[in-house]
């Protein structure tokens, strides 16, 4: 894709810039859609209707909200640290947007085909952590600071089970490149890693229960990494107002909101790429059977988006179903249950792979 843009514009730098802006065109409408979806899902789960007035079933509601946020006065509290207060939302958004560089949208488009792929995605979430801490400190508000501290402690703790589960998939796949991991799980859904991976045999069936366990651990810890319920203690409204973005308003608040929904999609895309075949269709491609080769990447893009949206929907579903954990319960879940289980899971999967 990068070569194509370089040829089209005749300039390597311009090609790079266009190549790196493509996910933005995808993320912003998607985040707007997610905000609308969250309202509708929460409303229907509570036997309400949610936004109904702006557009049919309120689909224009988030556009109206964005217009409102754009017009709002940019308020910086008098005692806040002006420089860091302004940089923080940009840093948080940059961190969550940087993750899109290594995620394959279809076999035709991936921002950068680096071999560090999934390790890179884990690494750039560090920028988000630093940005959250910056926002919490510079607001000069005790709720913001406490929210940021909780959020950072939570994200750092839950990175360990996430990385251990991803490592067990890397053991099976033999690569960190998300494009290659997705390519492996081609053809039919029983080739997905959740069903033991593409290689047939007895080991494949032995792997299935450990794969499901791994998927559950990864999904739970990814919920904690994006501060979603039941792990939303950094933003617990009854205790901390709104956590680290309490003092933010207008466009700066919108950037936090945007990056939160972008992050939700990133973790869902990672879950679907490592366990559910990424952009691969569960059953063949229409383009292949009709002999239209350009249709295949479009279908793949459809499946990628559909899987991502499905896992985001499950996150919303859980949010409006489960109560919030206490801080000690949060740490107990991570250190006493998820980390030992994911270690055992990793060792078993590594042994099975060794005796394949």
């Amino acid at each position, binding site marked *: 894709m990068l070569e194509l843009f370089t040829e089209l514009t005749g300039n*390597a*730098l311009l090609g*790079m810039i266009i190549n790196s802006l493509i996910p933005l065109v995808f993320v912003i409408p998607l985040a707007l859609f997610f905000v609308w979806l969250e309202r509708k899902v929460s409303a229907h789960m509570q036997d309400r209707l949610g936004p109904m007035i702006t557009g049919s079933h309120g689909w224009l509601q988030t556009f109206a909200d964005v217009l409102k946020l754009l017009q709002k006065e940019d308020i910086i509290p008098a005692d806040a*640290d002006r*420089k*860091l207060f302004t*940089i923080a939302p940009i840093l948080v958004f940059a961190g969550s947007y940087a993750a899109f560089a290594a995620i394959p949208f279809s076999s035709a488009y991936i921002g950068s085909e*680096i*071999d*560090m792929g999934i*390790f*890179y995605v*884990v*690494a*750039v*979430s*560090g*920028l988000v*952590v*630093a940005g959250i*801490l*910056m926002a919490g*400190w510079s607001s000069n508000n005790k709720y913001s*600071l406490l929210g940021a*501290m909780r959020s*950072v402690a939570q994200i*750092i703790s839950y*990175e360990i089970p996430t990385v251990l589960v991803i490592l067990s998939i890397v053991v099976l796949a033999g690569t*960190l490149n998300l494009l290659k991991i997705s390519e492996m799980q081609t053809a039919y859904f029983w080739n997905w890693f959740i069903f033991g991976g593409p290689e047939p045999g007895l080991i494949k069936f032995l792997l299935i229960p450990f794969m499901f366990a791994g998927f559950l651990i990864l999904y739970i810890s990814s919920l904690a990494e994006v501060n979603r319920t039941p792990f939303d203690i950094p933003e617990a409204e009854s205790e901390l107002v709104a956590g680290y973005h309490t003092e933010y308003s207008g466009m700066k608040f919108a950037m936090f909101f945007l990056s939160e929904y972008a992050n939700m999609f990133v973790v869902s895309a990672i879950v679907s790429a490592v366990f559910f075949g990424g952009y691969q269709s569960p059953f063949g491609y229409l383009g292949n059977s009709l002999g239209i080769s350009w249709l295949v990447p479009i279908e793949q893009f459809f499946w990628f988006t559909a899987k991502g949206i499905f896992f985001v929907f499950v996150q919303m579903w859980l949010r409006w179903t489960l109560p919030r954990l206490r801080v000690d319960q949060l740490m107990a879940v991570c250190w006493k249950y998820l980390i030992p289980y994911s270690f055992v899971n990793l060792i078993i999967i590594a042994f099975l792979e060794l005796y394949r």
Partner: protein
Amino acid sequence: MSTYDLIFYLFAAITLLSGFVVVTSKNIIYSAFSLLFTFFGVTGIYALLGADFIAVVQLVVYVGGILILLIFGVMLTNKVTNVDLKTGGVNVLPAAIGTGLFAGALTAIMSKNYWRAGNITYEETTIYTLGSKLLLEYSLIFELLAILLLVALVGAAVIARRGRES
């Protein structure tokens, strides 16, 4: 100027400017946060040199780990943030001699050394060779390092617990 050069100068500028802020800023929080950009710039330079694994590890260990720990430390020791840090000059003459000698040595190495500039074929990725080297050739050192880290971890836990009981 090629694109590669442009990106290199961008990262070099980020590293140098933020490093300058780290040293000269009177606010310790500003120093800590601009260290973030220094680490980020170094990551970019590693990536440009073809050391992809080191680049990502730099991001994980320094930005995701050490820097966060540092900022936590700075924030929790609240009194430090109100103290005026010394950024003025003391012992100017010895420092000037020291840095002058060091700069002279560096420029001498840079100008006198014979740098082999040729068409080196970069490996596509370094992880495969790195992994087999670490686990086959240098496995003893690798395991010893792991034990050292474990000992440090246990020691830290023991020290923290003793403080609570007394």
